[in-house]
């Protein structure tokens, strides 16, 4: 075989590769939707539901934190807005969460724009610190105005039987499917944004804000747009959480842990791909749940320790995230001669 002929054999047709990728996506989607039938226990199904919930929120966080590298540590605020809006609308006004969740998303967009205009003036690390302060502010406000929020006692949803129209289901499998649907929606949004003009602008801001300005990009407006979408996605997660757990208080709503987890899953999964954050949540949520389940009593502190060590190892080995690594392997697979 001549040298000139060899490479052409290696290069697959674009359409062939697209078809394989689409088939792979369908298989993964099938695996996700079939989860209730192979995870076994109700506890495992609950973890699968949490995976989808955190996958959704991490994908939402990534639109701004990952694509544009605007690291927000205050995204739990949008989670809180989503959770409290659905909770309060249901408790005080008997509004169905099916409307409460979209209302929470809309409110989160407004809150996001209100927060973004001052905080985006802060550059780099100061932006992260500024957003971190939001958690404190939210916690204090929601604790203090207890006539609206229930204060430190939090909100508990009333028990009113299994009424699907009020987002109350008899079987946990329904919660799982709703969370899975939410995550699929977040994945589609994430993909759409990445491949749109907005996605290119966000990446430009991440790589070189100076060059982005010289290309005519309005930095503030672009970041605000991403923050609005990001806030809405995270608020949807918060609304779902309220219905799933049926309880929220300022400590769990404005939790640093929630904020960090969104960022962490995205960073481990891969911030530059549209599906990386979901991958991160799929791996890390079960891991943290099981390590804290298996190691109890005097061994309990080992759970978080093992989890922390594992994170360090992954970050050292794959600093650009698992998604990028997998993509490169995939790329190599198509280039190597068969």
């Amino acid at each position: 075989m001549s040298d000139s002929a060899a490479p052409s054999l290696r290069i697959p047709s674009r359409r062939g590769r697209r078809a394989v990728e689409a088939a792979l996506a369908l298989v993964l989607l099938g695996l996700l939707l079939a989860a209730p039938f192979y995870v076994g226990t109700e506890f495992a199904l609950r973890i699968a539901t949490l995976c989808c919930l955190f996958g959704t929120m991490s994908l939402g966080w990534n639109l701004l934190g990952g694509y544009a590298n605007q690291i927000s540590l205050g995204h739990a605020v949008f989670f809180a807005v989503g959770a409290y809006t659905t909770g309060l609308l249901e408790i005080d006004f008997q509004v169905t969460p099916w409307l409460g969740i979209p209302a929470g998303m809309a409110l989160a967009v407004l809150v996001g724009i209100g927060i973004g205009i001052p905080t985006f003036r802060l550059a780099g690390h100061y932006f992260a610190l500024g957003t971190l302060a939001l958690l404190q502010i939210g916690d204090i406000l929601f604790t203090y105005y207890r006539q609206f929020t229930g204060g430190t006692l939090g909100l508990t949803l009333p028990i009113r039987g299994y009424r699907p129209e009020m987002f109350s289901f008899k079987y946990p499998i329904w919660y799982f499917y709703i969370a899975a649907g939410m995550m699929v929606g977040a994945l589609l949004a994430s993909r759409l944004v990445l491949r749109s003009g907005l996605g290119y602008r966000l990446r430009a801001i991440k790589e070189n804000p100076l060059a982005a300005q010289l290309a005519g990009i309005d930095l503030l407006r672009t970041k605000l747009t991403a923050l609005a979408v990001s806030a809405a996605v995270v608020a949807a997660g918060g609304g779902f959480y309220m219905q799933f757990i049926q309880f929220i208080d300022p400590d769990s709503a404005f939790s640093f842990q929630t904020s960090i987890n969104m960022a962490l899953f995205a960073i481990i999964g891969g911030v530059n791909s549209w599906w990386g954050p979901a991958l991160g949540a799929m791996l890390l949520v079960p891991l943290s749940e099981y390590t804290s389940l298996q190691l109890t009593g005097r061994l309990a502190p080992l759970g978080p320790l093992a989890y922390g060590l594992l994170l360090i190892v992954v970050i050292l080995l794959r600093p650009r995230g698992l998604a990028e690594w997998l993509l490169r392997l995939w790329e190599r697979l198509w280039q190597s001669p068969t």
Partner: protein
Amino acid sequence: MSGPLLELRSVSRRFGGLLALSEVSFQVQAGELVGVIGPNGAGKSTLFNAIVQLIPPSSGQVLYQGRDITGWPVNRVVASGITKTSQMVQVFGEMTVLENVLIGALLHQRRLDLARRQAIEDLEFIGLAPRAELPARDLTLADRARLELARALAVRPRLLMIDEVMAGLTEAEVGEMLDRLRAMNRERGITLLVIEHNMRAVMEVSQRVLAFEQGRLIADGDPSSVSRDPQVVEAYLGMG
């Protein structure tokens, strides 16, 4: 519009105790190709940054098409038709060459497919089309400078300021670049301000030359008279 495309009225820029631009005033008419010369530290790059409002003037006004644009956000200046390339080349390193130019094209063309087509044309014009799919960080410095020029063209400016795009080019490549500058100026009607250390190139291509020294505009005229200007000769020979 009959007035000048660009007008500076006693523009100064101070950095602490240093006066990087001192009472600079000049006009540029639409369609001109103007060379900007001067020794290192004369304030040439600061001039471009002050016009595009990356480093807004400390005092004085920048007028574009008769409107005072002093203090405008950079992106608004760019959207209105002025952009520049940078001495310290600014590209998006992790993106492909094509994506770099696409981002410029997206300013006035919101449809991705059309913006991509336009970006390919701009890359062909600038001679980088064969490298379209490479990450920008893999280019040589000279190619990155050309890439920045392609991106600047993609935003469809009326006034384009080019800060040293010839550095690191071979003699033949300088010739090609000069042809491109002329083509941009004549065929595309873009008004050009060009900072260049390659004196032969700048004198050959420019219709008019502005000479700077220590933040002051010391000569403004056609290339041959500026090169004979005693102050310019002093500034250059005094350095050597």
